[in-house]
């Protein structure tokens, strides 16, 4: 077989478009040609890597923004709401930079004045106004606090640093006002301030208010990942878990994605199974695996049943063998068969060893002939022997009785088994 031919067939096989005849030819070529085998392994790895990139949900605000832009008579130029909203938060960042450059005078006072201004005086637009129209966003932007507002402050911080509220009377007062403000105003205030201040307020607020705040934030756009990370990292786990349990799933997931690994695992364990399942469904593959590993076995089985086949297969491939076998035993046939098909040979062999007789038979019956034969052919002699050594004789017999095969496939497997038996006999 030429290089071009086997390359085409390899991609066909990986795409699932290969016919049984082509598959047989390909595996013949793979057995005989090192270069072909290397190409096959490289290509399979590439498919695996590409499969690790999960699809991403766009912000729920995006649809609103699109429809409002289309429905309005405003010119649909590149000046999008997205960037308008984004620019609102440039205020906080640029302000921080300016503060650190000693261009602004009183950092703590700024926070206090922000509290006074936003909590008492400023009429906050609702989320829908902020995201629904350009007008709402512009209004919001045009009335940000200025240097002029700062001069009213009486606080003594002059270095622009934020620090803890215990060392910063301005911030302490702001935090106190924050605690006493009603929900709506507190949420508006919270959205308007810089990351450091959000973190500080977050630490100082009680759980109920924190949960309200978190729910009030509009994710993805107004709360950038940087902010989410800072907030999630700053809260202690108990508080974070309380918030996560009370927030809607999208925000919990956002919080979750932004937390560091250790915190994430703790947080995950504290959630109900329903939320855990939702988070797993929406989380990137690698993170799903981490989470999955952090769950206890009882929950894991429930989670496992709730996931899509694709994600299950990914998780299964990466879980450690012992857990994978447990999961396998607990799953129904359809799912078991699904991940069996998706597993690499080593795992398939391990599954085979660990599964009970009935499931193994069911599993093998559910696979098509080519794949069953292919599985045996693709195992090394050592592995074939290993599988055979671990299976009791009656299991092998049951396995064979359950197969429906054409003569050629039976002969092929028989040849493999002769090798296995020979290896077993030699060992014994």
């Amino acid at each position, binding site marked *: 077989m030429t290089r071009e031919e086997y*390359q085409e067939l390899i*991609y066909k096989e990986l795409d699932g478009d290969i016919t049984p005849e082509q598959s047989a030819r390909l595996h013949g070529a793979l057995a005989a040609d090192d270069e072909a085998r290397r190409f096959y392994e*490289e*290509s399979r*790895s*590439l*498919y695996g*890597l*590409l*499969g*690790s*990139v*999960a*699809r*991403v*949900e*766009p*912000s729920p605000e*995006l*649809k609103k*923004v*699109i*429809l409002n*832009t*289309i*429905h309005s008579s405003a010119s*649909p130029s*590149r000046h*999008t*709401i*997205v*960037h308008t909203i*984004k620019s609102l938060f440039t205020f906080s960042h640029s302000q921080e930079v300016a503060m650190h450059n000693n261009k602004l005078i009183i950092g703590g006072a700024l926070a206090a004045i922000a509290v006074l201004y936003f909590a008492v005086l400023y009429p906050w637009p609702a989320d829908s106004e902020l995201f629904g129209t350009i007008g709402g966003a512009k209004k919001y932007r045009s009335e940000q606090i200025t240097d002029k507002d700062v001069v009213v402050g009486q606080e003594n911080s002059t270095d622009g640093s934020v620090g803890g509220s215990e060392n910063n009377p301005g911030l302490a007062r702001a935090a106190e006002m924050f605690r006493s403000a009603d929900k709506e105003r507190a949420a508006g205030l919270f959205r308007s301030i810089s990351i450091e201040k959000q973190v500080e307020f977050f630490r100082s607020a009680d759980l109920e208010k924190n949960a309200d705040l978190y729910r009030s934030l509009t994710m*993805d*756009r107004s709360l950038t990942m940087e902010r989410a990370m800072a907030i999630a990292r700053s809260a202690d786990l108990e508080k974070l878990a309380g918030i996560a349990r009370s927030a809607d799933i999208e925000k919990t997931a956002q919080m979750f994605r932004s937390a560091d*690994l250790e915190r994430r695992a703790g947080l995950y364990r504290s959630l109900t199974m329903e939320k855990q399942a939702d988070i797993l469904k929406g989380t*990137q*593959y*690698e*993170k799903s*695996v*981490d989470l999955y590993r952090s769950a206890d076995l009882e929950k894991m089985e429930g989670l496992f049943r709730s996931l899509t086949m694709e994600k299950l297969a990914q998780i299964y491939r990466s879980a450690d063998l012992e857990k994978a076998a447990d999961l396998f035993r607990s799953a129904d046939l359809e799912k078991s068969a699904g991940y069996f098909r998706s597993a690499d040979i080593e795992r398939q062999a391990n599954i085979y060893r660990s599964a009970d007789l009935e499931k193994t038979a069911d599993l093998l019956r559910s696979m098509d002939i080519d794949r069953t034969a292919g599985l045996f052919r693709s195992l090394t002699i050592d592995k074939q022997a290993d599988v055979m050594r671990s299976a009791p004789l009656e299991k092998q017999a049951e396995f064979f009785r359950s197969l429906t095969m054409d003569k050629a496939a039976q002969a092929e497997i028989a040849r493999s088994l002769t090798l296995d038996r020979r290896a077993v006999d030699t060992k014994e």
Partner: protein
Amino acid sequence: MTDDQTLVRRFLEGERKAFEPLVERYQKTVYNVALRMANDPDDAADITQNVFIKASEKLGSYDPTYKFFSWIYRIAVNESINFVGSARKSEALSEDLATGGSSPDEILQAGMLSETVEAGLTKLSDDNRVVIVLRHFEELSYDEIGFILDLPVKTVKSRLFTARQSLKKILSKRLER
């Protein structure tokens, strides 16, 4: 569920709300194509918005004998390529930045595999990247990719082959470092 063609016809007849289900149906697809091409969520959101605005403006030129999803894909791909070509924002994201200059073990342990793949994708040419995105992330057939890119299927296959080979080299270099 009302089919795409009916919604398009109703929108063209003046029923503005008929566009809403189309946005609902295809925004995730368009967003993900844009995200993989631009490698930036904010840019992807902008591209998505522009795609639907253009679609609403040019809906009169849509030929209903073709699938609406192929048509919107075509706009999404063109818009993404135009955006990436002009902004070249993805080049600002170096491989090391995307993975923090981590070793392969660290990449695996920290769950950074997909970030590594995404960073690798940015190293491909736009032509190569788009076929990988459509085939591997959107799971479109060669025929569909050919329609969207206005290329014969044979060219799609050969471009995909080149793209995969390039990506293999990029990723193996990164993961073996």
